[in-house]
């Protein structure tokens, strides 16, 4: 059983398959890495969570996948397969034809992503007219249907509203309607509910999940909120300092974290129901890009660090005990961890 074999299993049913993606930028003469050989897969009908703290590389991963990498960032290696075609080697014009049609994206700040000068109906109709060649009237009618799909009351009237007339939650629903206009296969959601109040967040998450099931969408859900991940993601990948340090089925990851960083994050969540006492936290700070140490990048903050083993060489992302075999029989992507001591450690999870 080799790693390559079960990767092949993942690729087979994959919608989006990111392999060994490395991204960085040039500062004077030096190359500063931002992503270091990041690999993950999103299959149809599957919600995959990408979690990590600020600067861990989760947003850069998603922007690269959409072909929206901002300057001065560059791709240094790897591949991004979308339904069997590598976006990185494809003609930029073809990527543009995919974007917004087969794959689309929603962002954190919906109000800022909408154009204040056009009605929301026009903005939903725009991708339909550009990509599907609908007439103004057809696109307008479809826009109203889409507003109904995202559960906006009085959709017909709302279509002629301007973004500033809508609340934050409503704007995010409009963004979702725009993203879904051309019936994409993949939706990348980058912190879509972070700016919303909890009660509104709950409604938007429910809506996203309903639509995800109805359309059999693959969703890459980027967030720093582990509570949200636990509720909606089938699988989760945890990023730290430009690498994926652990990935696996969400419940397994929370119940039995294998990486000390995942464990630290889980212990840092104050949970409703157990009041009082001190807060869990992880000592130290995240190392900055360009200052990543040899060996494990989490070593300086880790309680289980062992000098001579953790701080040398390159720590691979490996299937955890037993999961590789199960994975082969079920066609499931195995749980993987990037820690040399993963087999020796027994870390406490949730529940």
């Amino acid at each position, binding site marked *: 059983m080799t790693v390559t074999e079960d990767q092949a299993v993942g690729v087979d049913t994959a919608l989006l398959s990111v392999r060994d993606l490395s991204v960085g930028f040039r500062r004077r003469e030096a190359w500063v890495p931002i992503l270091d050989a990041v690999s993950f897969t999103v299959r149809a009908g599957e919600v995959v969570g990408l979690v990590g703290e600020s600067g861990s590389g989760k947003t850069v991963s998603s922007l690269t996948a959409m072909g929206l990498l901002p300057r001065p960032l560059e791709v240094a290696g790897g591949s991004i397969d979308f339904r069997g075609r590598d976006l990185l080697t494809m003609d930029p014009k073809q990527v543009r034809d995919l974007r917004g049609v087969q794959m689309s994206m929603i962002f954190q700040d919906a109000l800022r992503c909408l154009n204040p000068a056009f009605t929301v109906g026009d903005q939903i109709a725009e991708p339909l007219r550009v990509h599907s060649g609908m007439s103004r009237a057809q696109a307008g009618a479809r826009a109203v249907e889409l507003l109904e799909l995202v559960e906006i009351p009085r959709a017909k009237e709302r279509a002629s509203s301007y973004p500033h007339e809508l609340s934050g939650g409503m704007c995010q629903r409009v963004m979702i309607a725009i993203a879904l206009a051309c019936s994409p296969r993949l939706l990348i959601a980058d912190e879509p509910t972070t700016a919303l109040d909890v009660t509104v967040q709950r409604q938007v998450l429910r809506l996203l999940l309903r639509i995800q099931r109805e359309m059999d969408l693959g969703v890459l859900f980027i967030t720093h909120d582990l*509570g949200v991940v636990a509720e909606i993601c089938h699988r989760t990948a945890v990023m730290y300092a430009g690498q994926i340090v652990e990935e696996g089925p969400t419940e397994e990851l*929370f119940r039995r974290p294998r990486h000390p960083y995942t464990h630290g994050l889980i212990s840092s969540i104050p949970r409703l129901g157990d009041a009082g006492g001190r807060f869990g936290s992880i000592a130290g*700070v995240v190392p900055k890009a360009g200052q990543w140490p040899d060996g494990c990048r989490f070593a300086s903050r880790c309680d289980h660090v062992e000098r001579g083993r953790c701080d040398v060489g390159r720590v691979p992302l490996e299937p955890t005990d037993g999961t590789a075999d199960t994975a082969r029989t079920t066609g499931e992507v195995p749980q993987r961890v990037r820690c040399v001591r993963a087999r020796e450690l027994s870390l406490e999870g949730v529940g």
Partner: protein
Amino acid sequence: MSKDVVLVAEGLTKTYRLGRFGKRETVHAVRGVDLTVRRGETVAVVGESGAGKSTVGRMALRLVEPDGGRVEFEGVDVLGLSRTELRRMRSRMQMIFQDPFSSLNPTMTVADSVGEPLLVQGRTPAAERHERVADLLVRVGLDAEFGERFPRELSGGQLQRVAIARAISTSPSLIVCDEPVAALDLSIRGQVLNLLLDLQAETGVAYLFISHDLSVVEHFAHRVAVMKGGELVELGDTRQVFGSPRHPYTRSLLEAVPRIDFGGEGAPPRSSAPVPAVQPR
């Protein structure tokens, strides 16, 4: 007023006028809020955006002038104070903001920022002040050499420690904390909250803790005030409010918090076995 009470707010009200071109509208940002904070106590104000929680915090320090009501701080009627008197009072009441990047002056060194309240207070000689700043930085878990750095050289968590050092420099009896950890990463959040807990245990400072994060509040506050649309809808001991909320709004807030309880009730259905049934080709 009893000696162990730091802050009493009664009937706090703030209205803003909106609209132009003849269409005038009065909006109540805060309406008739009563709050008491005792020495060494943490009272949390929770609610969603626009509920008026920040306005309450600011009115408690008279950073925003209330339109109605009364604020008494350590037995003194704050709204009746002259500018000079208010300034003297301010060293006993401090504030920590959400975003330490914008609440600290980017052109001042960390040491100058931390020492500024003492400088303004004008009672501490320069030499003593420098020593005190170094002590304060160590107290909040930073090296004394951080004093020579500028805010841009520090991370968010470190900057929030600096903001805390500055707030405790004049030994206040009340600190209004407006979403002090909302902008921080999860692994850092606990560090800062634990620091605030330690400082309270040590100095008996009281916190008026404004937050939208109910799980943090449950751990952190002794009492909780729930606001909705400018009004206080529920106030009580944290345990009681979280354990058996009386107001339907409090209940709906608590229910909306994302939970990590696999297989629990109420959570939306989630399959641990994914559904890659459809081949997308």
